[in-house]
């Protein structure tokens, strides 16, 4: 089942036409949408809920916690427009605390894919594995980075580039900017290991700890608050591991709600999430005392 909160114009119509019995528009009522999803999941269905940014999660967080997670119900919550994908329409449509909030809930897996290939795999994973999922997607038009999906395991961090000077880890759609940042750093003689981390819960620790053992700095990059998202998850792993000799920095949002109006590209440049901003912050981590 696909249950939408009266959104998805221009996107969900093909599904509705092809599978009318499996489509439902619940209207602008996210708490009811989530409860319906649980009722249908408990009746044997695989259910996806769908809305924009914070609407399918914050509005109905108690339903997600008590009804989806506590019952381990087969419901996948899909949010389109993670981070500042909805740009100029403003803060009410920016999902910038969602990863931290959802990460605290038991029993739910969280995937924030970095490109359309990862998104296809994430959707399949969520559909084929029983239990609660939160899928945090971009909006549309994100560049495709992976050439093929055939050898990709999105359950674990994906090694995009090898390097020993520092590691850049990223989730939720910033991979393209991070790879460009790695190029900038390479021109300065710094070789970056780059990890795409689509699945942040459960976060497979092996590659994360190896990076801290084998490179000089760990830098997390997310279009999300630096409190409790990817950066928090990685810090938790590393501080409880045997890794000792590494520097650590979370790149993300720390200024509160965006006071600037602009599209996603513009906002990323303002808040240091474009390639030059990421590269500059990474350099400071290595060279500051």
């Amino acid at each position, binding site marked *: 089942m696909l249950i939408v909160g009266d959104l998805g114009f221009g996107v969900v119509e093909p599904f509705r036409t092809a599978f009318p*019995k499996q489509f*439902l528009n*619940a*209207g602008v*009522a996210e*708490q*009811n949408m*989530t*409860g*319906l*999803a*649980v*009722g*249908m*999941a*408990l*009746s*044997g*269905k695989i259910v996806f809920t769908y809305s924009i940014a914070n609407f399918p999660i914050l509005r109905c967080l*108690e*339903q997600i916690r*008590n*009804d989806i997670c*506590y*019952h381990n119900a087969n419901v996948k919550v899909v949010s389109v427009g993670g981070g500042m994908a909805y740009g100029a329409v403003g803060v009410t449509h920016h999902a910038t605390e969602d990863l931290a909030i959802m990460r605290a809930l038991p029993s739910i897996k969280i995937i924030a894919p970095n490109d359309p290939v990862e998104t296809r795999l994430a959707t399949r994973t969520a559909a084929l594995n029983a239990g609660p999922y939160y899928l945090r997607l971009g909006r549309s038009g994100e560049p495709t980075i992976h050439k093929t999906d055939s050898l990709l395991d999105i359950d674990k961090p994906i090694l995009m580039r090898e390097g020993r000077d520092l590691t850049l880890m990223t989730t939720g759609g910033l991979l393209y900017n991070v790879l460009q940042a790695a190029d900038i750093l390479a021109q300065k003689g710094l070789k970056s290991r780059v990890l795409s981390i689509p699945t942040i819960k459960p976060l497979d620790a092996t590659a994360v700890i190896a990076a801290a053992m084998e490179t000089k700095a760990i830098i997390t990059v997310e279009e999300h608050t630096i409190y409790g998202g990817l950066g928090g998850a990685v810090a938790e792993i590393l501080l409880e591991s045997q890794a000792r000799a590494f520097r650590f920095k979370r790149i993300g949002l720390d200024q509160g709600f965006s006071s600037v109006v602009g599209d996603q590209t513009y906002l990323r440049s303002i808040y240091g999430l474009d390639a030059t901003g990421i590269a500059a912050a990474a350099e400071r981590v290595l060279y500051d005392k």
Partner: protein
Amino acid sequence: MKNNHSKTDLAKLRLLAYRIRYHVLMMTKRAKSSHIGSNFSITEILAVLYDQILHIDPAQPEWADRDRFILSKGHACAALYAILAEKGFFPVEWLDTFCLNGSPLAGHATHTVPGIEVSTGALGHGLSIAAGMALAAKRDGRSYRVFCLLSDGECNEGSTWEAALFAPQHKLDNLTAIVDYNKIQSLGTTREVIDLDPFGKKWTDFRWAVQEIDGHDMNQIFSVLSEVPFEVGLPNCIIAHTVKGKGVSFMENNLLWHYRYPHEGEFELALAELEKKA
């Protein structure tokens, strides 16, 4: 209204109601827990539902075509546990452990207990889940029915009305909401806090088929529950006018008994009253 029950049926239901109240009194006293008033107001409704109406099988709590019952007012779980035990869903001895350390029976309805569909406790969740189950039945061509018992206070929650708007849109005539209208919520009467009247009219205006009954009259409860669906294509709402704390004179219509567990003296008095009326 259908014909009255035979004398033996009524006697049987009255005895069942007595046993529910007896268990609730014991459980509440032993666990020093709350909500005795909330449990007593739904006792007759539960007795009729589980003895006469629901198509269920204690030996197969997961039977795919079973009727579903959701206690959306999950704080009144003691009465639900009591009727489930009486019907053989789990051993009666479990009731002695209610709310105690290590018990399988928590202080709000919990889905890990055989016979309980959904964990509830935060008000305003049950009707949406019930609507989802009802919709699944419609889409799958299954004929099971879904019943959901709400409190009046719970109808303060916006989510309740989201579900109420949704159900007639999708013609969920296999869905029945029963509201325990005892007119006392947790910090005052409904009139003082959020006056719901005209209550029946609200549900009618939301396009439900509505019946109002005396929620302690076994005949009326049985009649009305036997008549669902009241109208093809419309979800059903039964507004049960009840008394919080019904069955024990000093508990009736008394907000205190939303919270208080019976102390020595009170317990014996309550027990004596229940036995006399049984």
